[in-house]
């Protein structure tokens, strides 16, 4: 086995960009402030110097325009990485992503591939208030034709991009801005990762915690606390929000007979709704109790820390909820 290295989430993404650009000269990065500014979150700092302005392209505020341009470039044989600074601004590019990137292959009878990768910062946790704290994975996960990935760990922050660039189909990658500075250990040779499967991060027998994105480390932390109290939780990171790998979490539920789905997005019509529905449909008779959900409160996220914290599930909320579910 290879050595472990300490790395921030930010650095993990950056290395992936760097490596993919070195490997394939069809790859280029375009987005607002990715070049001269060094990336809104300093992810691409230094890359402009390394690759020059043709491959690290600063673009004007024109989300629809440059995302569409990325689609066009992909159609024409390039491998663009389009950075939509954060998901909050992705609505402006939604038409391009949903009506073009997601439909062209099918609508053209298989003629036109759109091998674009769209990365966006996502989530809550920096007191940025209503218009800048969205968790909109559910929108993207609804749309056939897209592959939707959520990088809930450092390995995935690094590996998903590398794999996505091999995909003939459009891939959306959600990155979690609240985790950028977080340091973790990953294998020094960690590279491309599987992008069709969910992952069991911790095995357990009492309950399945099913989550993604910023929920992953939170659930792992909760599982540790729960273990101390004698509750053995299995933690599953969905990773691929579309097409969803249900086998992994169904197998888990068939083993533990109980599940809690945890996500930061608003509760209604969310990823967790879909997970619960699939368990209902395919593992109903394995359940000892109803599956429950801990999700984002359905409110435009407010600015103050205490209200922001109250808007999404925290580790203690997960712990408490599991205890209530198992020891009512």
């Amino acid at each position, binding site marked *: 086995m290879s050595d472990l290295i300490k790395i921030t989430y930010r650095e993990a993404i950056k290395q992936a960009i760097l490596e993919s650009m070195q490997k394939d000269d069809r790859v280029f990065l375009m987005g607002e402030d990715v070049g001269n500014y060094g990336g809104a979150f300093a992810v691409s700092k230094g890359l402009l110097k390394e690759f020059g302005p043709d491959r690290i392209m600063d673009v004007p505020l024109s989300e629809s325009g440059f995302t569409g*341009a990325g689609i066009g470039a992909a159609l024409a044989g390039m491998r663009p990485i389009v950075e939509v600074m954060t998901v909050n601004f992705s609505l402006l590019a939604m038409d391009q992503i949903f009506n073009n990137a997601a439909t062209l*292959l099918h609508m*053209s*009878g298989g003629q036109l591939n759109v091998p674009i990768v769209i990365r966006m910062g996502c989530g809550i946790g920096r007191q940025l208030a209503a218009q800048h704290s969205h968790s909109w994975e559910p929108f993207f996960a609804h749309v056939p034709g897209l592959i939707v990935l959520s990088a809930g760990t450092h390995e995935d922050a690094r590996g998903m991009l590398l794999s996505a660039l091999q995909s003939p*189909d459009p891939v959306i990658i959600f990155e979690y801005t609240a985790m950028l500075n977080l340091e973790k250990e990953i294998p020094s040779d960690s590279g491309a990762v599987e992008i069709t499967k969910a992952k069991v991060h911790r095995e357990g027998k009492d309950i399945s915690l099913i989550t993604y994105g910023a929920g992953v480390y939170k659930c792992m932390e909760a599982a540790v606390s729960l273990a101390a109290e004698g509750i053995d939780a299995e933690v599953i990171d969905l990773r691929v929000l579309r097409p969803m790998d249900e086998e992994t979490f169904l197998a888990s539920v068939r083993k533990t007979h109980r599940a809690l789905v945890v996500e930061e997005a608003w509760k209604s019509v969310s990823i967790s709704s879909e997970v619960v529905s699939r368990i209902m449909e395919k593992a109903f008779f394995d359940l000892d109790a109803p599956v429950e959900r801990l999700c984002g409160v359905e409110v435009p996220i407010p600015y103050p820390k205490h209200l922001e914290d109250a808007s999404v599930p925290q580790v203690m909320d997960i712990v408490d909820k599991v205890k209530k579910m198992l020891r009512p």
Partner: protein
Amino acid sequence: MEKKKKLDAKEGQRLLHQMILIRRFEEKSAEEYTKSKIRGFLHLYVGEEAVAVGVIQALTEEDNVLSTYREHGHALARGVDPKAIMAEMYGKLEGCSKGRGGSMHLFDATKNFFGGNAIVSGHLPIAVGMALAAKKQKKNKVTCCFFGDGAAAEGEFHESMNLSALWQVPVLFVCENNLYAMGTAIRFTHSVQQLEKKGPAYGIESAAVDGMDLLAVMEAAEKAVKMIRETGKPYYLVCNTYRFRAHSMFDAELYREKSEVEEWKKKDPIPKFQDFLLKENLISAGQIAEIETAVEEEIRKAIAFGEDGTWEETGDLTRFVYSETQSI
């Protein structure tokens, strides 16, 4: 002027053939629509033939062409097989988009014909991206993008114009100003109605031309394409034209006077060009009759091809939502 001298009989006849083919093809399509052989939205190009034919003749086979949902004319002028187009509108597997797209979504990658886009203005950013790719790939490839006066009011027009000029990419924007966006006259959609005046705001070389006059369109398009190839910069060409028929088959045409339509029909591009050819002795009455007969035969074959086509198996419905091969 110069142009008129250059035009030889063979080329003149070829272009007339194209215009007549488009005209008859559209008339036949309308007929097939009333017979319910064609369904969905059907937008005809009758009256605007000189634009597609005049512009596309200025391109090479390597160049890219993108259009709207009113794209039969562009597809035909581009050399997409009329049989494949008709089969597409019949919804048959032999259609140029395997029957999945219908009238609004004609695609033919082998002809570098990229739709067939039904979201107004949605293909402009894509065109910019294809031109960007050509620049990066150092290919001598112009991307030509047709759109309407209505489209020019969308934000994507602004973003695409700006991006193309900023990046200096070889794209030809062709605005087909037929004075109406569905039933909304241009005075209700643009504060400045000479649409060529929008170009200078982006520093893009711009021109307007009488879109009912094939020779004028040819000359303007050739000049534009020449400039693009020489400079690598975008060009914006407004073709002032008129659609003789309703917006689509659902249109009662409440918004314009019959007399206005009649007035414009006097400028019909086909008799005009025909007369020119006759006057210049580039064609004979007999040759015109031959073209009409040949076109009739082509269309008869197209219909037969559509009729004889096969329906896709329902079981194949979800083919090409994602690619069937992982390497492209």
